[in-house]
């Protein structure tokens, strides 16, 4: 009996081995085991419909595209979807995905000494040639360092070896990525559709020649739209301001001009369809890029010039194919200012005509009050009846609207509000900003008055079911905008304004949402900072700061400690008015819009002088000087410039 039992154990082991081999073919068995112990494991396994999985061994160039927030936030990013399709369309390139692991998954990875892996092939990130990080906003910087550590890659470029992957960054935050200069080999400035392929070709040629890492960086630095921060040096004056930003070699450019695509490329259609529920789980279609309105607080409006749009003839087949390929039930038609699309009415009519029997919901956010007609409202009512409507006047007095260059006729505004309620939308959300330059209490009081008046209009049409919601944002003067020289308003003043609005809205039965002053401080420091913030970010991360965008994790004390212990003054970046002649940390990044134009725009702003829509009158911002030569015939692709 005993003997047979022993034989049996050996057989069991052998059998166990076979069973395990089967498991490995599904996925690395250890990864599989830890997935049982984390919340929403579907975030980490890929396998979505339309996922592209290429053969690892036979594909020479391997990218991992990383969105440094959780899957739930990052997966719907349109930039990521575009790059995924563009890179994977090349036979000799593969592009996989990875995201920041949530806290429970990170703990499991660390406990089991497992590296962070890609969703497609479950390969450790260190095994890829290029890691391409999307940096859409600053509050995910600490997540980047965390992902590097979880991958066994040193945070500081200077500590890495020749065998580490090339670490690239791209996205809207890269127009001033100086605070992250220590941690990235290179940043792509501007639009990535073409340059990502060009970098791939350059990388392959370099790899074939067995070049050194330094050679690769030199080659990249000479490349249009690529910024290699380690090849630039910054000198400072006694007062802490910048004396000069210098390239270390004569053959690399002193200024890095952003990249644009003169014609918007074919839109992605085969979107990945997430298996787990995520934020904004819908299909996004970019109908237009850029904006001609020139709102002075708006970073996106300045850095994404010129305006380019996709025509109705391109968009309808794209939507059709994408719906067929994904099965999505909701579509967002995205742009910075939808109602400014020259064919917007035709687009909504055609969408209605083509898709009304499919039981879909269409969203058309970012509507401008003055270009928003009753005809368009009729169409929208068909596309997405019920629910809420959003408008963003941003300021409530005519004077303040002139300062921010978002003029709006009061009569037009209240007419639109009336029509919205008359069309049956029961809830209206209005976005306003506080902390704007030259703002007085009178301007803040006007926000409350506007809210009350809108509520009254709603009530007269829909009775008590009419809801008004004020969304109050605080101005952070962003790089590359006319307000870039201005300080941020003090937290005490902001708090007083919020308190006033809170009391008033409560009394009037209006819902209000806002950011506490402290919560925008991190964004202020990191967006307006320079490369001396590198050690601050590193220390904050070392001391546990991550997922800084998640309100529930109060990381501010960690950040304050990090500033203190590294001897960097945060107020220098937040509350100091910068001189018009000062060299700003991002001056070597050329967005096509001239600094002199921004300066003039600031001066006009303070005098209350507006610059109406530049589609009609060119104010020579510089974008045509920079890119006019690439401008196609208007029949091929519409540009907003006159």
């Amino acid at each position, binding site marked *: 009996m005993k003997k047979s039992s022993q034989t*049996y154990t050996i057989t069991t082991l052998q059998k166990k081995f076979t069973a395990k081999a089967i498991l490995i073919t599904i996925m690395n068995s250890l990864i599989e085991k830890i997935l049982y112990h984390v919340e929403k*494991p*579907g975030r980490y396994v890929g396998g979505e419909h339309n996922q592209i999985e290429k053969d690892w061994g036979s594909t020479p160039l391997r990218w991992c595209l990383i969105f440094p927030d959780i899957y739930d936030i990052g997966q719907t990013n349109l930039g990521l979807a575009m790059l995924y399709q563009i890179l994977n369309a090349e036979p000799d390139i593969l592009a996989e995905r990875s995201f920041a692991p949530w806290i429970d998954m990170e703990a499991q990875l660390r406990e089991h000494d497992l590296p962070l892996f890609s969703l497609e092939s479950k390969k450790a990130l260190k095994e890829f040639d290029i890691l391409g990080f999307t940096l859409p906003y600053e509050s995910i910087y600490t997540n980047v360092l965390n992902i590097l550590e979880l991958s066994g890659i040193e945070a500081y470029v200077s500590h890495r070896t020749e065998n580490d992957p090339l670490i690239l960054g791209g996205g809207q935050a890269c127009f001033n990525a100086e605070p992250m200069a220590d941690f990235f080999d290179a940043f792509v400035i501007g639009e990535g559709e073409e340059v990502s392929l060009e970098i791939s070709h350059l990388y392959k040629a370099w790899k074939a020649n067995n070049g050194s890492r330094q050679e690769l960086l030199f080659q990249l630095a000479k490349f249009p739209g690529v910024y290699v921060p380690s090849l630039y040096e910054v000198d400072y004056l006694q007062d802490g301001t910048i004396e000069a930003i210098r390239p270390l070699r004569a053959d690399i450019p002193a200024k890095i001009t952003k990249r644009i695509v003169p014609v918007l490329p074919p839109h992605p259609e085969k979107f990945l369809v997430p298996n787990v*529920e995520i934020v904004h789980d819908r299909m996004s279609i970019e109908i237009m890029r850029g904006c001609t309105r020139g709102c002075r607080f708006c970073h996106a409006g300045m850095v994404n010039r010129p305006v380019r749009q996709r025509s109705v003839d391109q968009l309808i087949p794209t939507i059709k194919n994408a719906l067929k390929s994904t099965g*999505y039930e909701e579509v967002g038609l995205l742009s910075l200012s939808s109602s400014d699309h020259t064919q917007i009415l035709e687009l909504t009519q055609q969408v209605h005509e083509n898709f009304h029997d499919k039981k879909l919901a269409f969203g058309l956010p970012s509507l401008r009050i003055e270009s928003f007609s009753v005809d368009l409202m009729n169409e929208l009512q068909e596309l997405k009846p*019920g629910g809420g409507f959003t408008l963003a006047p941003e300021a409530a007095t005519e004077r303040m609207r002139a300062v921010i260059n978002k003029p709006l006729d009061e009569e037009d505004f209240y007419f639109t509000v009336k029509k919205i309620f008359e069309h049956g939308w029961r809830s209206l959300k209005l976005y306003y900003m506080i902390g704007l330059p030259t703002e007085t209490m009178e301007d803040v009081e006007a926000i409350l008055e506007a809210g009350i008046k809108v509520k009254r209009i709603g009530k007269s049409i829909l009775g008590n079911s009419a809801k008004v919601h004020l969304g109050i944002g605080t101005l952070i003067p962003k790089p590359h905008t006319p307000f870039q020289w201005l300080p941020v308003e003090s937290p005490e003043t902001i708090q007083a304004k919020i308190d006033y609005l809170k009391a008033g809205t409560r009394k009037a039965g209006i819902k209000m949402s806002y950011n506490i002053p402290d919560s925008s401080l991190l964004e202020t420091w990191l967006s307006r900072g320079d490369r001396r913030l590198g050690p601050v970010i590193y220390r904050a991360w070392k001391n546990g700061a991550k997922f800084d965008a998640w309100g529930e994790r109060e990381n501010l004390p960690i950040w304050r400690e990090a500033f203190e212990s590294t001897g960097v003054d945060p107020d220098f970046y937040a509350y100091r008015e910068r001189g018009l002649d000062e060299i700003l940390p991002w001056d070597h990044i050329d967005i096509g819009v001239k600094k002199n134009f921004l300066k003039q725009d600031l001066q006009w702003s303070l005098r209350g002088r507006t610059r109406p829509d530049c589609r009609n009158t060119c104010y020579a911002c510089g974008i045509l000087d920079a890119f006019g030569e690439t401008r196609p015939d208007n029949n091929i692709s519409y540009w907003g410039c006159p």
Partner: protein
Amino acid sequence: MNDTPIRIRVKYSKSGNLRFLGHIDTQNLFERALRRTELPIRHTQGFNKRIRINLASALPLGFISEAEILDIWLDQPIDTEIIGKKLNEALPDDIKVLEVQMVDNALPSLQASLVSSDYLISIPADPGLETFKNRFQALLTGEKIEIIKRKKTIDLKPMILDYSFQSESPDGDQFFIRLSSSPNANARPDDLLQLLEIDPADCLVKRTKLNFS
């Protein structure tokens, strides 16, 4: 449009990466896949029109299955073979449609007629078959097998309807168990594994059959 909807019963398997997909997410996945098939799918009435779909039983996270069942409703009859083919084209590789049949629309809901589920559990080398057997027998000798779920004490003993050990299978040692899956008495094999001091993550649990009344 046909007033009486056509009720279609689908049997499918779930494995690989998709074993880590929860119940609601699986339901959403089918909704989108059904939309991709462009079959004449019946929608629910009302303001938010959704696809009418009904899954027999939630498969716990991490389990694989070769016997999941769901019902969908169509506006017009379609050849079941075509439905199966279109669904398989629209579904990710880790879900495979195995059988499609038209059923009487008047039948009670799947949940209401589900009685029990069969599971095949791979026994990990640690603790091995013998220890597993001993622990399980010890558990059965007790008057009750109690666990606490959502602050309620549940006795699993009457819910164990059948079991056996399969030591000669090519997949190693396996434990077969039939557990009650009715709305009032629903037992999960992972709860049982935990009572046996085994981490369900160390086992491969496969649902092999759903038994209906």
